[in-house]
Every structure is written in C-alpha cells, then in structure tokens.
C-alpha cells in the first residue's frame, strides 16, 4: 500500500483578526504538531471530545483552512505550495461528508442538483440525460430510489439526507474522503445503516478515509487505525486491535469507559472524567490531560510527555506509558 496522505508536523493557530477596540482574544492552538500517514484504501479514525481539534484537522487535510505550520502531502505533492486553482482541481480527488445532515444540503436545490454539483464543477456530466443517469446510479448505490432526485432535502429524514451527502461525496470517485462526525446527529439505529453503507462503499470504491468521531464505539467497525486527540494533539495512535485491546493512554481508557453499554449488568466500574476539556487558548503546562487525569503526578505538570512507541505501530503520549523496549524494537521502525 502506498502512502496517499502524509501529514508532517501540522498545526493551526486561530488568532483574533477583528478590528475591534479593546483587548484581543488570546490565540487558540486548535491543532499542534500532528504527524501521521494515511495509506491508499485505509480508514483512519480520529476520536476526541468537542474542542479537541479533530474537525479542524479534517479541514486542514482538505485545505479548507490553511495550516499555520507543517504541511500536508497529497500523493507526494505539498498542498501548501499549490495555487488556488490547483487546490480546486485536487478537490476532485478529495471530498467531505458533513456532520449536520440538515444544514449541509442547500434547502432550495433538488437532490439531483446537490448530488451532481461536484460533477458539474469538474465538467464530468456530458448532457442532461447523462447527468440524470449518473445521479440515478449514485442514488441507487447509497440505497435511495432514483425517483427521489427531483425532490428537495426537506422531505427527507436525517439518515436519508446523510445518504444524499455521501452520494455527493463519492460522485467524482475521490481517492480520499473526510467524514466529519457523519453519524453523531443520527439515531443509534440509523447510525448502523450509515456506518455499514460507508464501509460497503469503501470496499467497492477503494478510497481512503478519515473518519472523525467523538465515540470510540462508533469507530470500531470502520477504522483500520485510530488516533485519539486531546487539546489539539494526538495522545495515542495505533491499529484498531492495539487501541481497543491495550490502550496505553489514560484518556483513551476513559473514553472507552464512558461509552454507554447496552448491558445493565455492566453499570458500575466506569472511569468518569472530572470537569471539561480546558480551553485550547489556555492549555495546562506539561501534559495537557493532567487536570483530568486519574494518574497525574508531579512530573506531568512540568514536562510534556512525548509520543513514544509502546509497541510496533502504536504510540502514546503519557509519562506512565511503558516504552517499547529498544532491544525488541524491529530495525524497520
């Protein structure tokens, strides 16, 4: 598998650029020194609470917002060095599915117009007839009857709208899709439908994909690898099996423990994190998680733990994570 996307030291700081009088708001470090690779046909899940920078990361990868530091290489080309025209052409290769099934479809356009929009933009529809045929095919692919194409979004339920959004994203046959919490606004029963649909489509079309979620349970079925983010940084990353069976970061463990289980017998014994995520404009010193961490010790407020390898392909940023013994480390890594 070749590398499709190579993220190198990516960071984004939002600064207050308004011309108001008075004190400016402090800059917000939404994403900080994030590095990873996504291979062709691979699904990477990014999980974290709201405000952890996961949506910003998704938008940085698509160059919907510009990075303050680091770079994103797409098929070995540096996106930050591209012209606006080149970026727009690249959008044919990378698409996005949005969280809000209601807001992300324009209310005054028909389903056909919405789905065909990316194709129209890149001149992929030859005639009216061709366009309708392609839209019909896409609707069928996402499990909606083609006769829906002349209706407007308000007639559809959340799950159906999300299917329309997915049809729009895959219409230009992209190599990479960012799905920003595509199921968190849906009923649990509908979540399963959408997750299965995205999995099927990935198998059929072979795109890579970044799946953003706040819930580790949702991601389990989609992801090949999982990255857990906290306050703009990746705190743990590994393959699905590694993350779910042997989490090394206390935050990952807390996230798993917080997911409600449909089993009344398993009620007790959960780790309940105290308080909220601190403001990203005022990140705690040392380890950013220490204010809520059940393991926090003195060193945590002084020194920020680096991402260390705890087993091959599995990294965690915690002072208490045991580093993978050097002796056992394979020469390749």
């Amino acid at each position: 598998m070749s590398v499709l996307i190579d993220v190198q030291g990516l960071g984004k700081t939002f600064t207050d650029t308004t011309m108001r009088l008075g004190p400016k708001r402090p800059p917000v470090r939404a994403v900080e020194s994030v590095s990873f690779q996504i291979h062709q046909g691979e699904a990477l899940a990014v999980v974290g609470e709201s405000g952890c920078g996961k949506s910003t990361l998704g938008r940085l990868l698509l160059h919907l917002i510009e990075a303050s530091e680091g770079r994103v290489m797409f098929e070995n080309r540096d996106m930050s060095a591209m012209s606006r025209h080149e970026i727009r052409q690249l959008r044919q290769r990378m698409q996005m599915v949005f969280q809000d099934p209601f807001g992300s479809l324009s209310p005054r356009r028909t389903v056909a117009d919405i789905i065909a929009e990316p194709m129209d933009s890149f001149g992929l529809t030859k005639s009216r007839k061709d366009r309708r045929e392609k839209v019909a095919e896409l609707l069928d692919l996402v499990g909606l009857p083609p006769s829906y194409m002349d209706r407007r979004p308000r007639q559809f339920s959340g799950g159906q709208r999300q299917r329309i959004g997915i049809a729009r994203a895959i219409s230009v046959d992209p190599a990479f899709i960012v799905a920003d919490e595509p199921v968190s606004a849906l009923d649990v029963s509908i979540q399963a439908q959408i997750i299965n649909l995205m999995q099927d489509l990935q198998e059929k079309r072979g795109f890579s994909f970044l799946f953003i979620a706040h819930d580790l349970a949702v991601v389990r079925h989609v992801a090949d690898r999982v990255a857990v983010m906290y306050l703009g940084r990746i705190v743990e990353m590994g393959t699905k099996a590694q993350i779910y069976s042997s989490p090394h970061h206390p935050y990952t463990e807390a996230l798993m423990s917080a997911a409600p289980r449909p089993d009344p017998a398993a009620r007790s014994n959960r780790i309940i994190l105290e308080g909220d995520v601190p403001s990203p404009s005022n990140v705690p010193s040392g380890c950013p998680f220490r204010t809520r961490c059940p393991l926090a010790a003195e060193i945590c407020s002084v020194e920020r733990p680096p991402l260390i390898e705890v087993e091959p392909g599995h990294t965690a940023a915690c002072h208490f994570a045991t580093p993978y013994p050097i002796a056992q480390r394979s020469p390749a890594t």
Partner: protein
Amino acid sequence: MTDASTAEASAELVAEREALAPEPGFREAFAQVILERPSTRIAFVVVVLFILIAVFAPLLAPHDPLRQSILQINRQPSWDHWLGTDQFGRDVLSRLIHGSQNSLIFGLLSPVFAAFFGTLLGVTAGYMGGIVDRVISRVIDMLMAFPELLLAILIAAALGGSFWNIVVVLTVAFTPGFARVARASTMAVKQEPYVEAAVAAGVSTPRIIFRHIVPNIAAPIVVLMALWSASSIRIEATLSFLGIGTQPPNPSWGNIIRDGLSNMFATQWPIAAGGLAITIVVLAISIIGDSVRDFLDPETNQ
C-alpha cells in the same frame, strides 16, 4: 448484510416514497404562493394595468396633456374631462396617464439598477472579507451618511434635472442600502454548512456565489427593492415638486401634485388623483414584494 434485508429496505422505501408529497415544480410553486393570495393577485393586476397605461399612454389619453386652454381652467369632472382640468386648462386625466410614464420608470428603474450594483458590492464585500470588505464598507458608510433626497438635490442642482441624471442620482442614493443588506446576508449565508460543503466539493467561487449565495439572499433584496420602488416614486414626486425632477410642462405624478397644490383652492382633483395613483402603485408593489419574499424563502414555501 444479506440481500434479503436490502430487499426489505427497498420495499420499505418504496412504501415511503408513495407517501411523500409530490414536489411542486417551480411554476406550480410560484402560482401557489403568488397567485393564491387574493391580495397579491389584485396587486399584480394593478401593477400590470399601470404598466400598460404607461406604455399605451398616447392611445389612452383622451387629450393632449400639454395643451392649455384659457377657456377651460379649473373645471370640475365632466364627460369630457373625467378628472377635470388644472389651472392652465389641461386635462388632468391625460396628464396623469402620461405622467405614469415618468413616475413608473423612475419607480422601477433606479431600484433595479441599485439592487444590481448594491448586491454586487455587498456580496463581494461579504464573501471576500478582509481588506476588500473594509474598503467597500467604508464607501458604503460614507454614502449612507448622505440623505438620498439631499444627494439628489445636490446633483440635480449641479448637473441639471435631466431624466438620466435623476435616475443616476437615485441609483447612487439607493445602492448603499442594498449593499448593506447584501453584505450582511452574504456573511450569514457564508456560514451555512452547505456553502462549506460546496467549497469542499470543489465548486468554483463564481459558481458558489451565483448558485448558493445569491439565491439565498434574494428575499431581503426583493423586499428592499419593493420598498425603494415606492420611495423612488415618492422621491421623484418630491423632486418634481421642488422643481428639479421632471421639468414642466411635462407631466409626472409629482409635479401634477405640485401644480395642484398651488391651485388647491380652485380645484382639488389634481392633488387627489396624483396622490391616489402614487398610493395605489406603492401599495401594490409592496404587496408583491412581500409575496415574492415568501416565495423565495424555502421555509415558508411549503
């Protein structure tokens, strides 16, 4: 997932599809919203009627609107002069009919021009943001600070009160209002997830502006247009009244009222007729504006 359950899903979806109300086409929706309201229908007929009157004025007017007759001054309505005559013995009805040309052209032309330029400026400022926005906004603020009437008098005094001068003046005077509304609406619509979705899908900027921004800010622009149409007819009347609009002896509704006012103790018909004509047209345009706004708003257009 087995094929059986997929089949079930589609069976269920077929049942659901039957249930969905058919989506009305544009024409049906238009007919529904615009023409099903009796008030709108009447307003529509009124405006069309006035436009026809203006177009066919020479054929409809029973008399030459400029012909004076010392023998027939200040007549009350009669078979020959339905609305009587003014202090120069001119037929009031004929002047009203010919005057509709000037008044309606003013009433419609300047707001349409201003809506075009204002929307262009406002959308540019709102969508581009940054320094472009700041420059455009400051210019708009400057223009806004001038009362439109004062501006009109100023320019008319400097350049003379020709027809096109007045149109230009009113266009300049109305543009900032449209630009303000367009800019604010654009900034709001720009935040909508579907606009971000379009950017992410690779849609070009001009296409985003014309497909996603403009249709979604059209409603307030149309309302403003109706509002300014009314104002425009009124301002033209004021300018004519002040003597810098339509130049006598040519008639417009404004100067019919002005001439009537200086003669109001002899006959009240010119004032009443001119005033009523302005009121009816302004009201009709406002009603149509409201309906069009409802039509353009996807939430009320059910």
